[in-house]
């Protein structure tokens, strides 16, 4: 019979919308408004999982995110989410769920044999064994342990859903929309200002949805509907299905909204959304989480938290059993009994462990015909895969009652977690037998059950106060008793008594931890793993701590308090990091001529965030053939290369020259207008930082380039120098990298190509524009800067035009007879000339190492000068730049190490490494650069470039670090 355990009427489910779902392949039915847990219970499904260590049968303990047992794999394929709480998962049509951590099935799990081995599997047992034989840990023990570990299975397939992020600013963030939160939000809205109300459930109301209470003499649900309407009318931003999961600095709260998790498919919606709420103040109205009681067999399906029972009965119209007993250390048992009876269930007992049972409670029990067992406990819950009876202890010792549902309540733990995210420790409150918030993050205050006021009236009142309201505005509630007498465990239980359900931590384990000296709560937690399961100890931390205190004769405060950190409940990693997926992980920067290059069939490679063309293949060419051709074209004719990615910085002002003298190691101010110079910048610690070209356009106007990779670091450095070190200099610094497209035009025919593109009347002849000169002229009809500088060593220019003209310039250069060349050829050309790039300018080298020591001016102060003079940076034995020429036509790889020719490849003979290597079409052989101890002094020696990692090795001659045209004749044409 479908839904045999559903009540015929009542509840907040929508009976007009039935929903079909499956669990472990079994097809079942529920209603819109159900959670998976309530629907399973309605169908009489009580066994839903197996525990982590002992594989004991487990059922549904709670009705909320604190659930430790009812974890399922939800959905299938790439969308599968392991370890999903059935108590939170909203039912949708076609939902598919599977139980976890069992083989071959839930009912018959072979690993339940672990239970028989329980005596060995006590807490921390693994630290004491698995050590012999030594080799067995990795080969035998660990693989077995890892296979048994974890609960659900990841799909291993890419997450198919989208995620969103949004920021909201608020004057008041109210966290939780139970009576306290609603009251606070109403009060705050009444003050004006922006109010955000966040509620983790799909509907507002908190406990009001689960208990049958009255406010102002009416059913609480009526008050709730009215409160919600008033909040919407006041423009309060209401976020449901949104868990505030972390409190960060500056009033920043992280929340995760389950936008589409309750739908069969998200469609165009993001699956979840991360909210960053920046709020002046916050009200913590997160309620309280009910405590279980520790007794034998308390983990059986059918043993549930009393408040959860009331949720299933009242909100979901389910009968979680037929015959129920109630075991509670507080007066809320009255409401539980009333609700159970009203739902048509038989209540066979109220078991009260307190020294005194209040007369009012006795009266309520009597009125429902429920026997009360005072000063008694439940010593043991009995059953196979479900509860069938309980055995009492204490005054009613030995009494056995048959029942299939036990509603237990050990009191409540205020949900203080967020309050301690900044390290403030919760404070033990003796009267409540609970922790309440201690020092809270700035701007936060607590209200309602979260602050220890568990009654509805207390929640309404303190919520209103926290929201800034007046007490007179608070509605009234009937008489309520929130008295709790601490009762943590039944001493000497029969059978295993569980403290942490998911990690199978028992009262015996807590005792063992005490015996071995792990008596502080942090040690208790780590040694026994209590509180480290996916429920983060919400139903176990405080109980375990109280038990340890009792065992060691200390107060709870002396034993230590648990401090909490984000996330409050587990958060999908996709929600935190899922908005910039795949290609959008980082921005992609394209040069102005990118599309033109793509149209030429150029492949691209990443250079930081930039894409740069590697080469321009002609039909039928291999990549190496393209590169060789491009190199030859530059050396013999003319080629052009897109160098727009280099950083460009515009420096202007009367003191621009003085400023650049301070920033660079060599002198810049001596540049005449219309001239350019290679420049080297050091870090303040004396090591080489970056190099580039500085050109002077006028007395007060310079343009400097940086390497592509260091552009933003250099900019920050210049800003620091200007603002913090030289604030008295009259100079401005602006990045203009993206504003200019820039191309290198190089080769013996470069001038004749350029002459075709400059306007009539512009003279770019050898005398008008000599080597290292710069001119401003029209190129292709648009303003341009022409720098006669050369990275390739050929007669060359760099032409800069406004970025919007970059593509046109590329086409014009090509039409004028220059051939495009890419990054690979660029690298070969510079290697043939021995110019250092990032592989040599790697943050570990000095100017002297790179043969640039003479650039360091002796006449001025500049960044890095003082520390560059330290002995260790001047040491002649430091690895210094040399050229490498393989003998006998060998190849060379960057990363090979340099070992003297006759010596073995061992570290004591390691003298340096190969920094760059490439095949040189110009020389017809492989060449490389390296950093070799003693550098220049070793020229003429023979070394081996050893690369055991790639199983290669080559003999090399140490040569000067320039292979082509050492005198630079080609530059000056």
């Amino acid at each position, binding site marked *: 019979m479908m839904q045999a355990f559903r009540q015929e009427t009542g509840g907040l489910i929508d009976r007009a919308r039935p929903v079909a779902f499956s669990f472990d392949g079994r097809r079942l039915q529920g209603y819109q408004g159900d959670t998976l847990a309530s629907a399973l219970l309605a169908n009489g499904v009580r066994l839903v999982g197996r525990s982590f260590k002992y594989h004991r049968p487990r059922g549904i303990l709670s009705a909320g995110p604190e659930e430790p047992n009812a974890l399922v794999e939800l959905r299938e394929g790439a969308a599968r989410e392991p370890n999903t709480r059935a108590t939170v998962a909203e039912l949708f049509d076609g939902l598919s769920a599977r139980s976890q951590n069992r083989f071959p099935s839930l009912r018959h799990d072979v690993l339940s044999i672990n239970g028989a081995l329980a005596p060995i599997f006590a807490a921390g047992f693994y630290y004491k064994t698995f050590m012999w034989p030594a080799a067995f840990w990795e080969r035998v023990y660990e693989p077995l342990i890892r296979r048994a570990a974890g609960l659900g299975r990841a799909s291993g397939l890419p997450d198919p859903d989208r995620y969103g992020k949004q920021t909201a600013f608020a004057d008041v963030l109210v966290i939780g929309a139970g009576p306290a939160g609603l009251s606070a939000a109403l009060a705050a809205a009444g003050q004006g200002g922006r109010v955000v109300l966040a509620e983790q459930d799909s509907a507002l109301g908190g406990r009001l949805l689960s208990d049958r209470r009255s406010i102002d003499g009416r059913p609480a649900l009526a008050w709730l509907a009215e409160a919600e309407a008033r909040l919407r009318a006041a423009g309060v931003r209401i976020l449901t299905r949104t868990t505030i999961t972390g409190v960060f600095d500056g009033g920043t709260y992280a929340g995760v909204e389950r936008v589409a998790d309750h739908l069969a498919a998200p469609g165009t919606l993001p699956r979840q959304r991360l909210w960053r709420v920046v709020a002046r103040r916050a009200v913590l109205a997160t309620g309280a989480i009910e405590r279980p009681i520790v007794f034998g067999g308390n983990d059986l399906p059918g043993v549930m938290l009393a408040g959860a029972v009331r949720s299933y009965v009242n909100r979901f119209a389910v009968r979680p059993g037929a015959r129920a007993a109630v075991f509670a250390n507080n007066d809320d048992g009255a409401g539980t009994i009333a609700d159970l009876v009203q739902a048509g269930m038989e209540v066979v007992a109220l078991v009260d462990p307190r020294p005194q049972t209040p007369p009012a409670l006795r009266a309520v029990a009597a009125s429902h015909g429920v026997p009360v067992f005072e000063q008694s406990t439940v010593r043991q819950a009995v059953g196979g895969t479900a509860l069938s009876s309980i055995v009492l202890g204490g005054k009613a010792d030995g009494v056995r009652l048959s029942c299939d549902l036990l509603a237990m309540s050990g009191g409540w733990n205020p949900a203080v977690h967020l309050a301690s995210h900044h390290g403030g420790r919760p404070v033990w409150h003796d009267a409540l037998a609970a922790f309440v918030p201690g020092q809270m993050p700035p701007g936060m205050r607590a209200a309602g059950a979260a602050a220890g006021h568990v009654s509805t009236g207390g929640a309404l009142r303190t919520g209103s106060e926290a929201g800034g309201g007046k007490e007179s505005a608070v509605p009234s509630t009937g008489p309520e008793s929130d008295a709790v007498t601490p009762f943590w465990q039944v001493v000497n239980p029969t059978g295993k008594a569980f403290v942490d359900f998911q990690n199978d931590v028992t009262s015996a384990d807590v005792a063992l931890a005490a015996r071995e000296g792990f008596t502080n709560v942090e040690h208790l937690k780590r040694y026994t793993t209590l509180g480290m399961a996916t429920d983060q100890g919400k139903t176990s931390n405080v109980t375990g701590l109280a038990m340890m205190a009792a065992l060691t004769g200390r107060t709870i405060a002396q034993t230590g308090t648990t401090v909490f950190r984000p996330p409050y409940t587990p958060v999908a990693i996709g929600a935190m990091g899922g908005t910039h997926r795949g290609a959008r992980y980082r921005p992609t920067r394209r040069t102005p001529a990118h599309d033109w290059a793509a149209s030429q069939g150029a492949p691209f490679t990443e250079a930081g965030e930039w894409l740069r063309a590697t080469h321009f293949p002609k039909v039928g060419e291999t990549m190496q053939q393209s590169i060789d051709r491009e190199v030859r074209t530059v050396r013999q004719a003319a080629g052009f290369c897109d160098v727009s990615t280099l950083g460009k910085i515009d420096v202007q002002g009367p003191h621009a020259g003085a400023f650049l003298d301070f920033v660079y190691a060599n002198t810049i101010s001596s540049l005449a207008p219309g001239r350019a110079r290679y420049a080297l910048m050091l870090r303040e610690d004396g090591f080489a930082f970056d190099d580039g070209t500085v050109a002077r356009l006028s007395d007060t106007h310079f343009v400097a380039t940086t390497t592509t990779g260091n552009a933003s670091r250099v900019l920050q450095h210049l800003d620091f120098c200007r603002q913090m070190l030289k604030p008295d200099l009259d100079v401005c610094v602006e990045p203009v990298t993206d504003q200019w497209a820039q191309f290198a035009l190089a080769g013996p025919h470069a001038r004749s190509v350029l002459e075709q593109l400059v306007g009539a009347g512009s003279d770019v002849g050898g005398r008008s524009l000599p080597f290292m000169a710069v001119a401003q002229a029209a190129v292709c009809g648009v303003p341009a800067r022409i720098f006669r500088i050369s990275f390739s060593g050929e007669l060359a220019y760099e032409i800069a035009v406004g970025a919007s003209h970059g593509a046109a310039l590329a086409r014009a250069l090509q039409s004028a007879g220059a051939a495009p060349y890419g990054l690979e050829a660029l690298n070969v050309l510079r290697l043939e000339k021995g110019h250092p790039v990032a592989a040599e300018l790697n943050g570990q080298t000095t100017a002297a190492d790179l043969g640039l020591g003479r650039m360091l001016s002796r006449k001025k102060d500049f960044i890095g000068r*003082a520390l560059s003079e330290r002995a260790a940076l001047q040491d002649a034995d430091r690895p210094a730049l040399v050229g490498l020429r393989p003998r006998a036509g060998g190849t060379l790889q960057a990363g090979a190490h340099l070992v003297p020719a006759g010596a073995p490849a061992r570290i004591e003979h390691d003298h340096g490494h190969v920094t760059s290597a490439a095949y040189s079409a110009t020389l017809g052989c492989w060449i490389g650069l390296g950093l070799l101890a003693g550098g220049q002094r070793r020229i003429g020696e023979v070394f081996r470039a050893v690369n055991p990692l790639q199983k290669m090795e080559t003999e090399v001659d140490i040569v000067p670090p320039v292979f082509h045209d050492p005198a630079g004749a080609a530059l000056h044409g």
Partner: protein
Amino acid sequence: MEEFVYAGDATLSRPGSNAELSAWVDYVYFRDNPAGPHSELWYHAAACRQFLKVERDTRTHVISSAELA
């Protein structure tokens, strides 16, 4: 990329170019590194590129003042 980038201790004072090596080593490498109020620089990298001088407690992260450096 974050809007503001940390730029270290704001109390440092760059030695004169003729200062002893030890003064330079101190400036570049050695730090008070207090647990408590800390005067430090932050750089508005994503926008105006101004350096800010911020007083912040390194134990609580509470910022007590911020001004243009």
